[in-house]
């Protein structure tokens, strides 16, 4: 019995409290461990997790509408969807579309919205070509009044309001910000132009259109604003401003540069600004209310549209609804993918178990030789193996020929074994079999043969000894193999594409189609996210039922 009654902290050799010293040592250990895995961790994060997260984010991202046609989105906010929008919305669309067409971004928006409503693509493409002509009417009219309207410098002076006047910085920075969104770039530096405050009060549309033109000329075209003749849209904006009866009155008291010119223009009869007619003349589909509805529905920066689409639903003006029966496909494909992956996993277990058992119970030398046979398919190209199955299974193929030769099948009624589910199951079982055999083999190798002998010596039949003693110990191998095979099978797409025909294709074939052919990456991301969620749920369920601790990839 010690006589120390000191209740103070236990001290380490160097005098610090043991608790703290221990904690420090543990922390150092953790940091060292972290430093050791850091290269892998960073690699996985940068090369794997981040791109996947970025890709999955596309399933909800929808900023393109608001970025490309912001004013239209704003105008459409109060639109009731009862009739084709009025002139105000068409004017907003005109200025939006003009800038977007200059930046060549309008066709992207068209492709995006075409996923939701057929025909929007050409609507934007054709009208994007015509926006120049729509404004040219006004350009010609102004140049008719005075050739000064052709002069870049005149325009520059007029819109900047001359030297030393108060500038409307806010208007300019708004337009630069808009251009940044449109081009997904960041711009800094002086545009070389600031709209005058006075003139932008009198001619708000013109000042805005000219500022947009100035920002674009400076940052995108990299030209000098004062040397470039403005866009047709600027002339249209001026015509629009001059239509307002208040403008002429305001101009009467204005004495900035170009005031006389503007007064002269205000006193002249101008073609009327009727963008609605101009748009409908360019493409009569602007008169279709469905197209406007789709622009409005998809104007928020984030959307559930892709996910709804991925579960055979759609957004309509009346809310969310199931798609027409003849367009529902993803439900069928998800169910089929799950079902077939399970069938493939089960057939892998059935075929792989005896093989793994034999391998585990043979002398090492023979086992190693046979192991090469198991691994051999790994060293052959996947495409070659799949194509080989095609030759085996087709109607004029090896198996059918043999059956006909043996007289088991009549020549006219050869078996259909490929381009259907059967073909996919056979080919994929073969391809995935090693992934089942290897974990099972490594687990079975650790089961001592003496257990079986002991069971038998205690009077068990062969079956009882296997079923009650051997099999339970091999379950972790089956578990590991099943998870591997199932998850690989769910994501397979080359094999189903080649041998699956129409009834044997998987959801991944559709994902591949949307990634590489239709370019609908949002939908592909939504389908991929759902697939990932399903796998995680199944994994969780597996953990609950079997227990993930029971999975072993090796001894």
């Amino acid at each position, binding site marked *: 019995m010690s006589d120390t009654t000191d209740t103070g902290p236990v001290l380490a050799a160097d005098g610090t409290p043991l608790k703290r010293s221990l904690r420090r040592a543990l922390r150092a250990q953790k940091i060292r461990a972290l430093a050791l895995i850091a290269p892998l961790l960073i690699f996985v994060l940068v090369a794997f997790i981040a791109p996947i997260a970025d890709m999955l984010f596309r399933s909800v991202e929808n900023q393109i509408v608001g970025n490309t046609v912001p004013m239209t989105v704003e105008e459409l906010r109060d639109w009731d969807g009862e009739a084709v929008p009025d002139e105000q919305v068409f004017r907003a669309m005109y200025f939006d579309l003009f800038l977007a067409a200059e930046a060549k971004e309008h066709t992207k928006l068209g492709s995006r919205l075409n*996923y939701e409503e057929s025909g929007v693509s050409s609507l934007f493409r054709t009208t994007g070509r015509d926006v120049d002509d729509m404004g040219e009417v006004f350009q010609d009219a102004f140049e008719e009044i005075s050739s000064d309207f052709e002069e870049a410098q005149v325009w520059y002076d007029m819109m900047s309001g001359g030297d030393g006047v108060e500038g409307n910085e806010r208007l300019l920075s708004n337009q630069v910000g808009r251009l940044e969104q449109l081009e997904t770039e960041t711009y800094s530096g002086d545009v070389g132009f600031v709209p005058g405050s006075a003139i932008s009060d009198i001619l708000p549309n013109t000042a805005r259109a000219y500022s947009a033109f100035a920002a674009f000329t400076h940052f995108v075209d990299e030209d000098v604003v004062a040397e470039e003749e403005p866009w047709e849209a600027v002339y249209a904006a001026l015509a629009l401003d001059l239509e307002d009866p208040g403008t002429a009155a305001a101009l009467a008291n204005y004495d900035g540069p170009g005031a006389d010119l503007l007064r002269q223009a205000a006193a002249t009869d101008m073609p009327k600004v009727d963008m609605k007619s101009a748009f409908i003349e360019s493409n009569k589909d602007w008169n279709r209310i469905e197209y406007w509805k789709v622009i409005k529905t998809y104007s928020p920066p984030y959307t559930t549209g892709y996910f709804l689409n991925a579960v055979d639903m759609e957004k309509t003006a009346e809310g969310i609804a199931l798609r027409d029966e003849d367009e529902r*496909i993803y439900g069928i494909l998800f169910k089929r993918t799950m079902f077939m992956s399970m069938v493939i996993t089960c057939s892998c277990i059935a075929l792989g178990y005896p093989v793994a058992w034999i391998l585990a119970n043979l002398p090492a030398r023979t086992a190693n030789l046979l192991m090469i046979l198991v691994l051999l398919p790994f060293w052959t190209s996947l495409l070659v193996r799949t194509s080989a199955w095609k030759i085996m299974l087709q109607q004029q193929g090896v198996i059918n020929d043999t059956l006909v030769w043996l007289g088991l099948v009549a020549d006219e009624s050869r078996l259909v074994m490929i381009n259907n589910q059967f073909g996919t199951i056979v080919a994929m079982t073969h391809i995935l079999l090693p992934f089942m055999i290897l974990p099972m083999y490594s687990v079975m190798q650790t089961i001592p043969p003496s257990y079986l002998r002991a069971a038998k010596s205690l009077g068990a039949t062969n079956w009882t000894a296997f079923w009650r003693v051997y099999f339970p110990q091999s379950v972790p191998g089956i578990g590991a193999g099943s998870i591997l095979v199932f998850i690989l099978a769910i994501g397979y797409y080359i094999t189903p594409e080649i041998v699956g025909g129409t009834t044997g294709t998987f959801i991944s074939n559709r994902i591949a189609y949307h990634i590489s052919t239709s370019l*609908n990456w949002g939908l592909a991301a939504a389908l991929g996210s759902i697939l990932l969620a399903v796998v995680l749920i199944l994994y969780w369920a597996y953990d609950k039922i079997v227990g993930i601790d029971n999975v072993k990839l090796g001894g």
Partner: protein
Amino acid sequence: MRLTKTLLATTALTVAAGASATAQDMADSMTLVSWGGAYQDSQQKAYVEPYLAANPGVSVTWDESSAEAVAKLRAMTEAGNVTWDLVDAVASDAMRLCDEGLAMELDHDEVLAAAPDGTDASDDFGDLIVSDCFVPQIVYSTTFGYRTDMVPEGVDAPDSICDVFDLETYPGKRSLQKRPIDNMEWALYCDGVAKDELYDVLSTDEGVDRALAKLDTIKDQVVWWSAGAETPQLLADGEVFIGSTYNGRLFSAIAEQDQPIGMMWDLQSFDLDGWIVPAGLPEDRLARVLDFLKFATDTQRLADQAAYISYGPARDSSAPLVGKHAELGIDMAPHMPTDPANATNVHIYDYEWWADNRDDLDAKFQAWLAQ
């Protein structure tokens, strides 16, 4: 005399300096993207080898990625690292790339060579310039080949597109491409719709149903293909009696491999393949690509290509120059989809219409397939 000499020498020097300056401004390597196989070989022999012979020091790398060109180019552009200089794409992909802003718009008269008689490039290519970004090279067609030895006895060989839908006269499997384009039009045509009304009918829901109903009549006899090599293989194996594929594939099965296959040109569907230049190339690479592009799409080069593969040159002025097959020595003209004897009844698919309706119709078509 001395003055003249000096002047001449100065001029020569200036010219030399000018020439070397332009050569210096061009990158000395190019990555070309194509489809691989016989088609890429024809490009290699008809334009790349002569170009390299004329420009020693330039190297060319091939990337056989045209099938995924649209997706890959989009990914490259988003990552800000476009490694391709010139991409071979079918017209519909070129349109898509142009719409997405991934391909560069070109002034065809400025960047392409005029025809030998001085006709502008845009007139020489004519309507085949379906997009501002697209420089057509060849006209190919999707058409049918059939097994000559599987034609039932006492029946004429199939010579009409509607024979594909006639299971009674011509029993046996058919192979069709796993996409709505062409198949929907063929089905409607054989259901009695006039050729110039196909797209009007197809624009309605009833029209789509009608086309699918027609396809339903042969659905369980159809093997659906997605790679162009499948139909020739299926025909060679005797798996199908008749099947659609690209005419060049059938030509090589018939002429080069001596398979018992016949061509059925009725209502062949014309399509185009050509070059696009990725948007945003650095100046030196762009200069090199435009230099190559001008050479590779001139009248003689396009005609040369036809000596290696049976696709029609996209220039009007190249047609008379089409000669014999480089190895087999047979006349190529009768094997061209554009040959008058073959082109008595052709279908020209509407790119704009399909660009608009592809997503919608594809969903319906795939749902129909899966049922």
